[in-house]
């Protein structure tokens, strides 16, 4: 992989990378750190990407690991009160608020499917979870999201 391809592909999936990092970290400053470090680490590990078609899932995996590192450093979870208001509101604030209320282990697979369009197998690979677990989590996540939206 040469640098031009690397930069071009990262630009192509930059929106997806931001949304995934935000789904985990829920804080733009942390997302910024995670995205920056992900790009550096991905280049460092580029030899491990065997199939260029898998660039997006490969990057997502690295990003999720980086987000976990940042969570680890900040020791503990972010409460809803600690989440700063985004500078530009999302198109559907009610949906955003409902999504915030879902536990992260359900929220992330839901975002990968219904925001990023990944299928169950891709999500299972990215999250290193059995397919059945992914299906179960997405089912529960949708149920909880519906409940939050109706509340």
């Amino acid at each position, binding site marked *: 992989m040469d640098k031009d391809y690397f930069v071009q592909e990262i630009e192509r999936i930059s*929106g997806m990378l931001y949304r995934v990092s935000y789904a985990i970290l829920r804080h*733009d400053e942390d*997302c910024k750190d995670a995205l*920056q470090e992900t790009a550096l680490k991905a280049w460092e590990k580029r030899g491990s990407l065997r199939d260029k078609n898998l660039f997006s899932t490969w990057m997502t995996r690295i990003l999720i690991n980086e987000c976990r590192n940042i969570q680890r*450093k900040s020791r503990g979870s972010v409460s809803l009160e600690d989440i700063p208001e985004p500078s530009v509101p*999302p198109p559907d604030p009610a949906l955003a608020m409902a999504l915030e209320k879902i536990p992260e*282990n359900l929220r992330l697979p839901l975002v990968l499917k219904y925001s990023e369009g990944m299928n169950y197998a891709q999500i299972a690979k990215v999250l290193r979870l059995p397919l059945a677990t992914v299906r179960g989590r997405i089912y529960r996540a949708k149920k909880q999201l519906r409940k939050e939206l109706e509340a």
Partner: protein
Amino acid sequence: MNKRPEPELDLRKAFSPTPEACYGALMNAARSVKEEPSVRKISFRALVIAAAIIIATMAIALAAEQLGLINLFGNDYGLPEAAQTVLKSTEQKDYAVGPLTITLRETLADGRLVYVTAQASSAGGANALISPASGDLSAYIPKTEAARLNLPGETSFLEAASQAKMPLYVADAYFEIDPALWAGEEMRAEVFGTDGSVLLVDMLQTDPQKVAETLTGTLTLHVREIDPASAAFVPDRDWRVEEEISIPVGGVTAERIYLPEGTALLGGYTLKSVKAEQTDAGIYLSASLEAAVDTPREDVYSLYDWSFLDEKGNAFPAGINMSGSLNEEGWPAVTLHMMIGADALPGAMRLTDASAEDAIALK
């Protein structure tokens, strides 16, 4: 009855557009990579330093003479007396770095971490606005700077420099060591003085197995001037001083193994033991745990919500290494590393999970 078809869920509507700062950080990092195949750890390390991966902005301001780790950490992080003695004994030294004076204020190393602080001030008391390199020039200036410059609180560094008609400098101070000694984490922080000076804090985690009695590295002090109108660096207004410094390393002064008393089961894990090692900087705890068969591995990060409490159930101060870590490579065996701020090894402790309803007693 036919079930009403559910509209397709579009979760993109739940997200704001990617903020400029996030997009910029991602793309700048991507564009900064070197084409050569040999991206070695040493060059990666340099990138990490430049990028200031972990930035903890301390939202407090102190009088210039109070700037330092003792006042910064206070009682909240449990900075031990031994650490305070070391910090107070640091030989301070002034460096002229272009229009600023940067003073090496404090050093502290215990084998696991090294702190270096430096205070950047306008030379000769000249009027200037100083921003830390790990900060953001579009961020609001601190309240103390707003008060000093008689500006509204919601004024960015760039706006403040324009409105107050004073030069804007970005100051940086960091300590580089042999990458082989580095344990992979770095924290950058800054504290503003009420006189406009800034204390720049750099903390590196080091490998206690490799660090000797003295830690030698390069202290880099860097100042650049910014044009507030264009937010660009002013050509030829870039000053850098590098000096090799050696910091004495205090090792482990006491250690102890704590064993569970009564139940050792908590939140799906069985606690085997806790090893405590005391240094000048605080107490490092390593809890050896084993996950139960039905404990999901993907939930291992919940261990970061666990806390060590004293005998009365009060949480210990967090300690000054600012992070914990997990080693899950030997799953189901997991080791949780945490620091607490205390002057001496406690006689007994408790370990509790996020619910804080159950705890394992340790003695």
